[in-house]
């Protein structure tokens, strides 16, 4: 599934981001799943609050990282799409 620019992704109950002090890394926890989150993924996931649209998230990140909007849009769309397929993000 491809998320559109107007969708407002959010983490459903039962999916959460956790900084794990024992392993020194960020993890996304879901039912029977643990996914390591790199700094970019953490930045995206933290913005999936059900309020901001995908397009607004891309704008924020493009500005924060001073990166081309198209590159950010492609990466964010892919990440959100992957997580939605795994039912770790609701659109």
């Amino acid at each position, binding site marked *: 599934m491809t998320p559109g620019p107007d969708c407002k992704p959010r983490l459903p*109950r039962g999916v959460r981001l956790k900084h*794990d002090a024992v392993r020194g890394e960020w993890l996304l926890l879901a039912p029977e799943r*643990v996914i390591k989150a790199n700094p970019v993924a953490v930045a995206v996931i933290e913005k999936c609050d059900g309020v901001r649209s995908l397009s607004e998230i891309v704008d924020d990140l493009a500005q924060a990282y001073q990166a081309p909007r198209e590159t950010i849009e492609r990466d964010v769309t892919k990440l959100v799409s992957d997580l939605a397929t795994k039912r770790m993000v609701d659109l």
Partner: protein
Amino acid sequence: MIAREAIPAPAGMLAELTHRCPLGCPYCSNPLELEKPASELDKATWKRVFSEAAEAGVLHVHLSGGEPCVRADIAELTAHCADVGLYTNLITSGVGLNRKLFDALVEARLDHIQLSLQDAEAASADRIAGYDGAFARKQEIAHWTVEAGLPLTINAVMHRANIARAARMVELAIELGARRVEVAHTQYYGWGLVNRAALMPSREETEIAVAAVEALRKKHDGVIVIDHVVPDYHARYPKACMSGWARRTFNVTPSGKVLPCHAAETIPGLEFWNVREKSVAEIWYGSPAFNAYRGVEWMKEPCRSCDRREIDFGGCRCQALALTGDACNTDPICEKSPLHAEIGSIAAIDAATGAQDYRYRRMNARA
């Protein structure tokens, strides 16, 4: 012996809070010798164990049993797990979970519910569970879960009596609003092994069911996550049991014994440590039972020189013991095992018996 630095931190803990359960499923993963209520750890000890587990690196805690909801302190234990940062998964039959307790669990910040379903048809489901009305009760619990916004997993154990409806069970899970379904073909240990002749499906039935479930995976992509535990006895290579012995997870029994897996106590000569005497970290890194099959040093041929030895870790130690008499042997599910051919014959013979009667899992049933 593996150096402590080479042992990864534990990621998961299965807390068997009690072996009491209203259901009698004939493939139950609990041992034949069920632990009595009087031997159960008290609330304060469980809380200490959960705190120690979180400190040692455990991420997910599976609140299981028996039926965990028969413990009067289940909501308080759940809240404690949430306080120490653990992700909580309640593994329940749904029977014994009333509205008041359900609300208390939601309030306690429970993260996820895994509900067992025995079949897609009520009469058959209740016969398998050995409990009249269980099927109807479960529908209600599923409804409450989804309504409360909690993620729901349906766990469906497959065997001869329900295998024709494997795909139907996935569809039922979707109708119930589950976000994830586990289609788990019966593993033959403990109760499952005792009931193998009444549970084993034929190879043909198995292949049809596996294909039907796999076809649904693509169709319902993004609607439901399908975790498919494929049948053992009809496979070429063994499963990477527990993702490798004492590599990721551990079990704590109702009385506090810490095991690398459900069936580990069937292996003679292993020394298990207890949370009443030692901390979770001490046990994870130092318990003789945990170190017995860590790494590859314990392996015999053909595992020892096999290029899959760190893919499937020689399969399952308990199954190797049960079927070959030596826990260090290659799991005979593996086609490289000299005993592999016998596994196919055992499965075929059991499937052809047509045995119907189960020995239900009950606390007073003797092994």
